[in-house]
């Protein structure tokens, strides 16, 4: 139901935006209006909006996402190529950001009130507040131009990849993944660290922590064995909540690093008014977010025995 509502809203909004896929072809004075009219008619854009919507909805009911004007391919095909790349980027960033965020929070809580705690809080806040596209551009310039140790963009080396061994291809792909994944990881880990620190501080005054201390456990053992597990519950909720933000972040980061995922396709499609690709991308994105929330609920139930059986 949510996906259907999202599809309708996106369809209407993108069609209300000024311009159409063929009005942007204006840098050639020889492109006549009749050519644009022919193209609009070929793609059914000359029909009234309700009729366009009904046609689209009918196709959607048959499992078709439409035809991408800018790729000249079915949207399904474009998404089938792009989705694995986005999932790879998001998956690496999700695991990386939670690992890094939890680690930072543990360090902060272990040294709470110290300079390290304050410094890490400041750094977390800095990245938490930073626009993702800006950090992406900075990272791009820093590690591809000022200190050129990573490739600029794309998922693989366009020249050499085909000629590499299996291991070489994996290494090449990892090198291309590094910067976009690092950027997304840093941004998401700032949120995780702040939440995890707060959650750990919440459980530390609990009776069972005091008991553990009285038993003579070290602070590190208390944090790892007792505090962390109980403080993970809000973090599991955060997985569900962070999924939309991660997806949105991935969209902009993919665009800047030319990472050929869904975001790269959809953000470009907005600029070119490739309606079916935008709507298709948003539908798949909303399905991913819904699945992410479901996954978070399942993890929550697994981590908290009190919820099992409900």
């Amino acid at each position, binding site marked *: 139901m949510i996906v259907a509502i999202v599809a309708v809203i996106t369809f209407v909004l993108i069609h209300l*935006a*000024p*311009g*159409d896929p063929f*009005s*942007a*072809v*204006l*840098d*050639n*004075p*020889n*492109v*006549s*209006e*009749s*050519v644009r009219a*022919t*193209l609009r008619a*070929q*793609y059914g854009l000359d029909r009234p909006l309700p009729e366009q919507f009904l046609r689209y909805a009918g196709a959607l009911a048959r499992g078709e996402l439409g*035809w991408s004007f*800018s*790729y*000249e*391919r079915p949207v399904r095909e474009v998404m089938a*190529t792009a989705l694995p790349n986005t999932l790879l980027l998001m998956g690496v960033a999700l695991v990386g950001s939670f690992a890094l965020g939890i680690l930072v929070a543990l360090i902060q809580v272990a040294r709470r009130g110290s300079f390290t705690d304050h410094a890490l809080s400041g750094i977390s806040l800095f990245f938490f507040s930073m626009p993702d596209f800006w950090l992406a*551009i900075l990272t*791009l*310039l820093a590690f*591809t*131009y000022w200190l*050129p*140790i990573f*490739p*600029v*963009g*794309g*998922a693989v*080396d*366009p*020249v*050499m990849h*085909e*000629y*590499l*061994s299996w*291991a*070489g291809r994996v*290494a090449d792909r990892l090198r291309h993944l590094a910067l976009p994944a690092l950027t997304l990881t840093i941004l998401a880990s700032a949120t995780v660290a702040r939440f995890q620190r707060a959650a750990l501080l919440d459980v530390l005054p609990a009776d069972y922590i005091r008991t553990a201390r009285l038993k003579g456990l070290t602070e590190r053992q208390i944090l790892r064995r007792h505090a962390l597990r109980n403080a993970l519950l809000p973090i599991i909720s955060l997985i569900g909540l962070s999924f939309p933000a991660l997806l949105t972040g991935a969209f902009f980061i993919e*665009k*800047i*690093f*030319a990472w*050929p995922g869904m975001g*790269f396709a959809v*953000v*470009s499609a907005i*600029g070119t*008014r490739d309606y079916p690709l935008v709507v298709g991308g948003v539908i798949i994105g909303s399905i991913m977010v819904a699945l992410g929330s479901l996954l978070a609920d399942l993890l929550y139930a697994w981590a908290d025995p009190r919820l099992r059986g409900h």
Partner: protein
Amino acid sequence: MAAVRYSGLLCAILALGCGSESSSSGNTGGTLVISVGGDPGVLIPALVQTVQTAEMVDMIYDRLADIGDGLNILNDKGFTPRLADRWTWSADSLSIAFHLNPKARWHDGVPVRSNDVRFTVSSTKDSTLGSPAASVIANIDSVSTPDSATAVFWFHARNPQQFFDATYQLPIVPEHIWKPIPPSAWRASEAGRHPIGSGPYRFVRWVPRAVVELAADTDNYRGRPKLNRVIWTISSDFQTAVTRFLSGEADFFEQLRPENLPEVAKHPTLATKPYHALTYSFAQFNLRDPVNHDRPHRLFGSRELRRALTMATDRATIVRSLYDTLALPALGPTLRVYPTTDPNLPQIPFDPVRARQILDSLGWRMGADSVRAKNGRPLRFTLSIPGTSDVRVRTAVLLQEQWRQVGVKVDIEKLEFPALAEKDRKRTFDMALGQWNTQPSPGAALGSWGIQASRASSGNNFGSYENPAFDANVDSALTSFNPAQRKAYFSKAYETIIQDAPAIWIAEPLAIAGYHSRLQLATLRPDSWWMHIPDWWIPADKRIARDNAPVAAPDSAASSTASTAQQAGQKSP
């Protein structure tokens, strides 16, 4: 550092034992990587709409003859043979017989025949294809094929540009590939994704939004191109595209911005080469009311007001601020590179004192807030610009400041490009900054400033400027066979439009190409810098790892395109 990176990859290749069997020797060999900011979309000559697509298409396909570096469009002077090794004019000049080079072959081995030429013309003119070239070859009536090696073009009327129309606008496509596919389905066809041409480079692969790779056609009838392969790496973001060049991942970037030049200068392996481009920019007045197009614009319907604003504009300062020495103030709707353009065309001078006098005389009196007003209405309007263009944003700010000094208030409206295009098309703007990338024919001015383009429901004359004297002089110029007379007619047309001031002609910028210094470039032609890529080369002792990579086999799908064409033709958007 880039070399270190690539040497790592080279090691991987060597470790594999997949040593190159590249036919690299002497002046041949090497790889050219071009960084571009857009995907081709389609690789079909008749459907080319962007520069990036044209670059790729012109390497894959060939024309009957090439215009040559002089960009002469009168008769066939300066044109060089391509698919046609010679041509003969009929006595009445209403037909031209092109004799095809018998060695010419499509990349799948099929000979190029006159039927291919006839098919190219008829399909381009087919309205269901929606080709931008259809309107510019309107003077071609038909093509007959007396034999397989001769294609005769028949024209509706004798015209100085008829040879240009028959050759420049029409890269020839193979009939055996495209005939089974209805023109309305070409755009979506598999054949368009695995093109087969007769040009110097064969198609190898195309990963959408990522890469297009071509390999030298070593058996080409015109001889082997020097570089083994040409690769376009595609970014959708200008910054990413230019960083690819600056970091050494790409060898060539077609149009650097002035702010990129200091960075390029820091790299000993990078160099720049300015070249003329067929581009001029302008600030266009809307002469009709944005709401009710039947009425003149409340401000810009007045020729005197437009002239006053032109006089208040210090174009030389604007151009110097934006481009330093890499542009000249535009002369009008034309370019200095055209042989028909008089570089000394009289201009409306920069004269702010006179501008103030004219505004006073029109009743626009300076108010207490330093903004002129008339009948209680301020002299204020909106200047619409694409927010993504840094140059146009800066142009707008400079114009705003210069006009403020004569009591005119301007609100700058930044729009994303499709939104601005919509506003242009619907003519709902007051004033807009624009730029035309035009053609070797100066007649293209009619398409953007002529009466027909004004009156068509949404033609490209967005400001609705109409002056029959301008149209008549351009028409006379286009039909004149005498170069001096032709130039005189064009000069009259340009003087007319310059004095009418439907726009303020801002800049005629040079394009600045950035390239890796190991590349030995040939001339960068104003209309299409890439046309001489087959003559570019890399000295053997300067090659880097990617120059020695083995050349990939042409895309296997390409060889089976003919068999899949029929099937692809069934596919529809």
